[in-house]
């Protein structure tokens, strides 16, 4: 294949990267540099970030991001576009403006490597839940980096010795709070102010370089690369060190077990309707006696596992049709059209009566749900969809009768390349 570059001036290992696909989560200070590095290495790059560029962070981004033209653009989409001219022939770059909550384990599993460049602990913990849900033999290499003051760090793991949670200090994972004091829907809080991590732009680019070098060494097959942490310190001691992190005793992340079997649904969450999913599952299980659990998102210690059909306007109290998953519903989403038009805010100080929420989807579910796509019903792209069979159990105290089968949509990983926004 033709290359835009002169191969004689590049690493002899470069051809090893042409088939590699790297997912970069977070496209800011570290992620933009990581994307630039991976693209120049000769691999394909996908990026995810829900945020957009601001001028105040311009001193930290890679030079591929243009200032001030790119201010206000979605980081992931913008970086993917800016690195495109640098790509090796045959490689692709793609950016999706999305929250990590919109992705499921199977999208992550479709990459050779994932570089986690996010600065908030809740996202790292959520990523670990998704990652550890992937059967061990299909887990990609994960590289997590971070910067702090004058230090840059990067850890590479294969998910066999320890997990990301082994590396996180649990006290950082502060509890999230559900908004309601009553038993209504669990409404997502807009993520608050991010932890401000004061650090130099150089530390960000070095963290990204360390991550890229770890990925490169892993692909080349260098010795003693996997499951190592590389730390660079600028001050007070200038040094670069390598250590081998230990698995944490009784680590809850390591305790997560992937499903023993994952069955396939033809199509993707974007095009399979609930009605079609019920038919496909029923063929696979050879019964119609089952229910599909509504997707459960566990984020910041709050479980979002309901699909809200109806509720009341949280500004004026009038009944409204919602048709959204709890985990994708924010307080301001619960307003009637009149209140949205009149810019009335949803009230936090009032307890509204619980709305109509479904926790499982079956043939008997509300007919409006049948023609909705699985994504619209709250399943992320690449989700593990849990199907519960009660086999005559009176309730869950009758535990031995209940079985769970996990399904996933086969086209989900490919569909990731066809979207720019996941909302």
């Amino acid at each position: 294949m033709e290359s835009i570059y002169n191969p004689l001036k590049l690493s002899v290992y470069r051809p090893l990267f042409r088939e590699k696909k790297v997912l970069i989560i977070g496209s800011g200070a570290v992620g933009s540099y990581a994307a630039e590095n991976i693209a120049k290495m000769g691999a394909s790059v996908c990026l995810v970030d829900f945020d957009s560029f601001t001028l105040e962070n311009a001193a930290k981004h890679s030079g591929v991001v243009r200032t001030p033209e790119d201010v206000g653009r979605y980081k992931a989409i913008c970086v993917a576009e800016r690195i495109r001219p640098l790509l090796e022939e045959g490689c692709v770059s793609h950016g999706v403006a999305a929250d990590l909550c919109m992705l499921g384990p199977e999208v992550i599993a479709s990459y050779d490597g994932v570089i986690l460049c996010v600065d908030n602990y809740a996202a790292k913990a959520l990523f670990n839940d998704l990652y550890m849900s992937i059967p061990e033999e299909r887990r990609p290499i994960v590289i997590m980096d971070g910067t702090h003051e004058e230090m840059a760090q990067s850890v590479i793991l294969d998910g066999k010795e320890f997990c990301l949670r082994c590396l996180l200090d649990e006290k950082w994972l502060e509890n999230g709070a559900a908004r309601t004091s009553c038993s209504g829907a669990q409404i997502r809080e807009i993520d608050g102010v991010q932890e401000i991590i004061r650090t130099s732009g150089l530390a960000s680019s070095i963290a990204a370089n360390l991550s890229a070098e770890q990925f490169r060494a892993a692909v080349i097959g260098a010795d003693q690369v996997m499951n190592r942490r590389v730390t660079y310190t600028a001050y007070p001691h200038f040094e670069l060190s390598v250590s081998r992190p230990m698995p944490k005793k009784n680590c809850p992340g390591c305790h997560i077990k992937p499903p023993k079997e994952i069955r396939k649904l033809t199509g993707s969450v974007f095009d399979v309707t609930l009605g079609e999913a019920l038919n496909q599952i029923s063929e696979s299980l050879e019964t119609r006696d089952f229910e599909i659990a509504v997707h459960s998102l566990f984020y910041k210690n709050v479980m979002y596992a309901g699909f809200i059909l109806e509720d009341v306007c949280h500004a004026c109290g009038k009944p409204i049709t919602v048709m959204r998953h709890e985990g994708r519903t924010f307080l301001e989403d619960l307003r009637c059209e009149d209140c949205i038009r009149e810019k009335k805010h949803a009230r936090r100080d009032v307890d509204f009566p619980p709305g109509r929420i479904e926790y499982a989807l079956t043939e008997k579910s509300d007919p409006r749900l049948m023609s909705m796509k699985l994504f619209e019903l709250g399943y992320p792209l690449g989700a593990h969809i849990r199907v519960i069979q009660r086999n005559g159990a009176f309730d869950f105290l009758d535990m031995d009768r209940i079985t769970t089968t996990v399904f996933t949509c086969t086209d989900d990983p490919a569909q990731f390349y066809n979207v720019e926004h996941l909302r």
Partner: protein
Amino acid sequence: MSYTANYTDEHGNTTTVSISEEESREALRNDYEALIKIYNPRYVRIERKRAQEGEALHLAITVKAPSHYLIDNNDKTPKACQSMTAEIIAFPGYPLMSVRAFYAPDHYLASPNVFRSGGACIDRWVVFTSSLLTVAEKLIMDMIHNPVVTRYDSMANPTLEEWHKAGVARGEFPTIRPQLLYAPAVPLPERRQRTVKTPPPLPRRRT
């Protein structure tokens, strides 16, 4: 699928626990078994109802003691009755996922903490602090109008605030000595505290 959650104990120490689907069911069974031992069956009947789709456990809790009810959305006049029933539903994600509680819409508890739709206002669900037991306790005490559990700051039916406070002032509420509702052998729970400590580190299977 498993979920990882933080648990902060009463000393403020945070530990993290991961719960698999099986452990979630074990936690539900443990809490149910603890629940049915707490109350005196003469006054409190706890009945399992068939769980519907999406439900893991569906309980009806009847308190056989004087109470007051309302019959529809517009009803503002509490009527006396000799027993009251609330229902609790726990979901497959228990104990990470909150339970829901409600009364029959045509015979619901007259209380500032019950919506006119019959939905019960339970306290905020705090993972590993809230449980089937804390919710049942709140409902049972609410059914005898025990002001100790009434939240006047979080009101589902504010029109009943004065009525409730007047009942308390007259010494009519609670309608029965709360101690009578507990099974004799069980030591009395401390008021305003959670009644039974849910085991945060769930029985972890050694494999």
